């Protein structure tokens, strides 16, 4: 029988990331190196302290993960590549947390990187011109979902624009966000941007970007010994699922469904952790296209089915709200290079739980939830907590 994972005595030793953006002249391995070095400094460690490493990316190419690790040194440590589309970073985090929790490693590193600019040079990601999947873009797939919700729930484009504006404005407060607007973004500005796929406008969609991020996990006693000067953040629990079949499943074209996959994965993770949505202080979700965020308010259990619009109207998921979502700007503003996306969520979760998220700090943040879906498709939900 399948269970979520509950981690025992696993803490975050260090975090580091390269601000997401476009770096056409910097090799991916160098972005990875810089994120890794930042995390080692944050942890008060060197690579000699790391027992095992998990490397994730979604750009084409085998072996490039282990090569990127060599930029940090050659110590003989085991390196495993992890790839699960957009969910890659969180799934690599889950594997590293389990490596420590199970006792096979005292210290495990997660290193993720991706360069959209390289993928464009290589002719683009996704299906080629000779494949049946080719004409339906991810934006169209999520727009189909948005249109159906508008039909069933009476959702208006203004609801989508309000959530997108919230994430853009969070981006302005986060130093590692790709999009840092120099003015307050309004829902009207979002609505006035160019239509991509009805009803989604460009400002409701994540940008292309490059980036890298690194998280080091370790036994809690080691973390306390290395950095006695600051609050400890624990990896608490994780769940990962692929699709269950139900009528209406689409097999051809992009797919990240069925939507219930998020609900079921979240339930499994909450059960493993022994907590519920009411215990969560701050949440991060796959808002590659803004209508997703509304769906996940419901599917992650933060409101009843059909109440997401009310949550938006109340401002419950923004600054000072009941359950702030995507406080680093989310995929829409912080960015979504691919592999590192999930680690950026962990990065922001750790800052929030340490009380270091200057300008966007959630008051008394105790528990953070990180959710991603990945094409194909999979869903992962992960919980972190501030140690008492």
């Amino acid at each position, binding site marked *: 029988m399948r269970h979520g994972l509950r981690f025992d005595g696993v803490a975050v030793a260090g975090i580091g990331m390269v601000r997401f953006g476009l770096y056409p002249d910097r090799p991916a391995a160098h972005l990875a190196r810089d994120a890794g070095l930042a995390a080692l400094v944050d942890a008060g460690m060197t690579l000699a302290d790391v027992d095992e490493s998990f490397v994730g990316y979604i750009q084409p190419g085998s072996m490039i993960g282990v090569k990127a690790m060599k930029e940090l040194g050659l110590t003989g440590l085991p390196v495993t590549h992890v790839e699960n589309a957009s969910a890659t970073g969180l799934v690599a985090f889950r594997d590293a947390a389990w490596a420590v929790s199970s006792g096979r490693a005292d210290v495990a590193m997660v290193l993720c990187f991706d360069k959209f600019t390289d993928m464009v040079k290589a002719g*683009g990601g996704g299906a080629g*011109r*000779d*494949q*049946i999947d*080719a*004409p*339906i*873009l991810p*934006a*169209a*797939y999520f*727009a*189909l*979902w*948005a*249109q*159906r919700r508008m*039909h069933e729930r009476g959702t208006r484009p203004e609801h989508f624009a309000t959530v997108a504006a919230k994430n853009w404005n969070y981006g302005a407060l986060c130093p590692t966000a790709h999009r840092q607007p120099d003015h307050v973004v309004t829902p009207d500005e979002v609505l006035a941007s*160019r*239509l*991509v*796929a*009805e*009803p989604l406008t460009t400002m409701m969609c994540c940008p292309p970007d490059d980036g890298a991020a690194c998280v080091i996990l370790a036994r809690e006693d080691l973390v306390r010994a290395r950095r006695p000067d600051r609050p400890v953040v624990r990896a608490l629990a994780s769940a990962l699922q692929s699709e269950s*079949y139900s*009528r*209406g*499943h*689409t*097999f*051809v*074209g992009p797919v990240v469904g069925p939507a219930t996959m998020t609900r079921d994965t979240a339930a499994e993770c909450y059960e493993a952790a022994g907590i519920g949505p009411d215990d969560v202080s701050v949440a991060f979700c796959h808002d590659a296209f803004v209508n997703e965020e509304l769906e996940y308010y419901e599917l992650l259990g933060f409101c009843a089915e059909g109440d997401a619009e009310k949550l938006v109207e109340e401002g419950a998921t923004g600054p000072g709200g009941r359950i702030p979502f995507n406080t680093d700007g989310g995929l829409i503003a912080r960015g979504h290079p691919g592999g590192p996306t999930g680690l950026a969520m962990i990065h922001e979760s750790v800052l929030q739980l340490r009380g270091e998220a200057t300008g966007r700090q959630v008051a008394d943040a105790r528990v953070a939830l990180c959710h991603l879906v990945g094409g194909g498709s999979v869903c992962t939900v992960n919980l972190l907590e501030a140690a008492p």
Partner: protein
Amino acid sequence: MARVPIEAGFFRIPDDPSAAPVLLGSRCPDCDEVFFPRRLVCARCLSVGCLDVELSGRGRLWTWTYCYVPMFGKVDSSVPGYGVGQVDLPEGPRVQAILLGTSSDFRIGMEVEIDLETLREDAAGDDVVIYRFRPVSPSPTEET
């Protein structure tokens, strides 16, 4: 000039140029669930040995959008935009496909029928085609 599918195994192109293409699906002999595209193992009951079936060319539009970008990104810029939808076939499968028409032509629940869209000419001079759906007119008003 022949018509060739963008990728083999998903639909059949009749010899009669005026005839509609036929989607190739599978039916599980044990639980009767029907799938598009073809598969060996039933996704519902895990029975091995699904049977080949041909699917209806008409269905109802479950949802739709209109993309304001050229098809295939910037590779083929001759197309200003295009519709995309999910169509529920009477046998059960939901099919994602290109739609013929513009935004104002589509409505959730409307009846649509299959035909072919020519994407480009290949090196041999043949037309590379893909299935698409278009509103049946006059459209019924019933919604699903």
